[in-house]
């Protein structure tokens, strides 16, 4: 979706302000919101693309006014409610008022190290040959789905070069919808800054994105 999350190339946000000696978390609720988000993925049975869509899919004024962990937490609430794991009255009451829904697995302390160490690789066994090879000239397609996509607006319709064939990876546009992993070839596509931003842009800059084959067409 063309939501407020798609920030590449926007103006008006002011300078980047690094925080000296920044702590990992800035308050106790950030710690808990972070951990709850990680821990609920297992019983919630959602995938990372569903989480990302739940985060970005909110009115832009809200998205931009919230801190990053506020966005995470709001998305966690959304997903819990959508799946009827938690009800509105329970969120208000701060305690369980209805029987829990059966869940297949929960995260135990004994699981933590292994679950984190394993992660969730997205590479899958190939089912087709890659259409493009390094050096090919491609154009990022013009798409504007209302649903989740990982092709930022600033590269759509722009011509670049395949720099690397990364592998065959889970396709977020399907996975976010619960429509299956539908893996696709993934490429690093490099664009000249001037192709993206125009002739006045810094000629010494190039920008790449990682793009799945359905995002690309031969140019």
């Amino acid at each position, binding site marked *: 979706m063309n939501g407020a999350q798609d920030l590449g190339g926007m103006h008006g946000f002011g300078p*980047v*302000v690094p925080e000296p000696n920044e702590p*990992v978390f800035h308050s106790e609720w950030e710690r808990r919101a972070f951990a709850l988000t990680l821990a*609920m993925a297992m019983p*919630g049975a959602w995938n990372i693309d569903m989480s990302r869509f739940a985060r970005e899919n909110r009115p832009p004024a809200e998205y931009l006014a919230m801190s990053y962990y506020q966005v995470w*937490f709001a998305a966690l609430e959304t997903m819990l409610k959508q799946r009827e794991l938690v009800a509105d009255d329970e969120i208000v009451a701060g305690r*369980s008022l209805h029987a829990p829904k059966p869940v297949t697995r929960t995260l135990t302390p004994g699981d933590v190290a292994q679950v984190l160490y394993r992660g969730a690789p997205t590479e899958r066994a190939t089912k087709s040959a890659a259409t493009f090879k390094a050096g090919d000239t491609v154009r990022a397609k013009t798409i504007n789905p209302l649903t989740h996509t990982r092709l*930022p607006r600033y590269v759509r319709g722009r011509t670049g070069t395949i720099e690397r064939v990364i592998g065959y990876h889970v396709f977020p546009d399907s996975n976010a919808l619960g429509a299956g992993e539908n893996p696709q070839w993934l490429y690093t596509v490099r664009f000249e800054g001037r192709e993206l931003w125009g002739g006045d842009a*810094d000629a010494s800059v190039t920008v790449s994105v990682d*793009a799945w084959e359905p995002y690309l067409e031969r140019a």
Partner: protein
Amino acid sequence: MTGHDHHHDHDHSELSETQLRVRALESVLTEKGYVDPAALDLLIETYEKKVGPRNGARVVAKAWTDPAYRARLFKEATSAIAELGYAGRQGEHIVALENTPTQHNMVVCTLCSCYPWPVLGLPPVWYKSAPYRSRAVVDPRGVLKDFGVTLPAATNIRVWDSTAEIRYLVIPLRPGGTEGWSEDKLAELVTRDSMIGTGLAKQP
């Protein structure tokens, strides 16, 4: 309309409201048996105490001193990094980017906050912020200026937008005057920002 003051007030009331909501939700999820608070504590402890940019600094220092490791790192970073024990969540597929005197690399995630957790820990607020995400891809030199860094005009800048599950780790240039230094001593020069590309390694 005093945008700034107003927003601060707004944030403060929002924060306490959020604090209460998070606590309430944790109670509900715990009572329902969906989460185990001890597992939450462990998750927090892991990223607050164990996993952080010191991991990445060790990778960089080794790449600076061990040519065979350096070669493995640029060929297949995920496994080279796993040799040092770093792997897993948000680092399942890592690519190492080589800074050279003629090319500087900078990593961003314009769409969210993708970041190589096993080697850098959790991302700082500025990395997830609108100013960085909006400007890194269009004005990387301006962003570097915000960090007090000026590169020669002749240096090409390569920006990597992390739009998939590939995580990028910048291997900064090894500072001069560090010949014969140990990996441990070299690792002290490797800042987090130098591994994102918004900084350079410290001068000795």
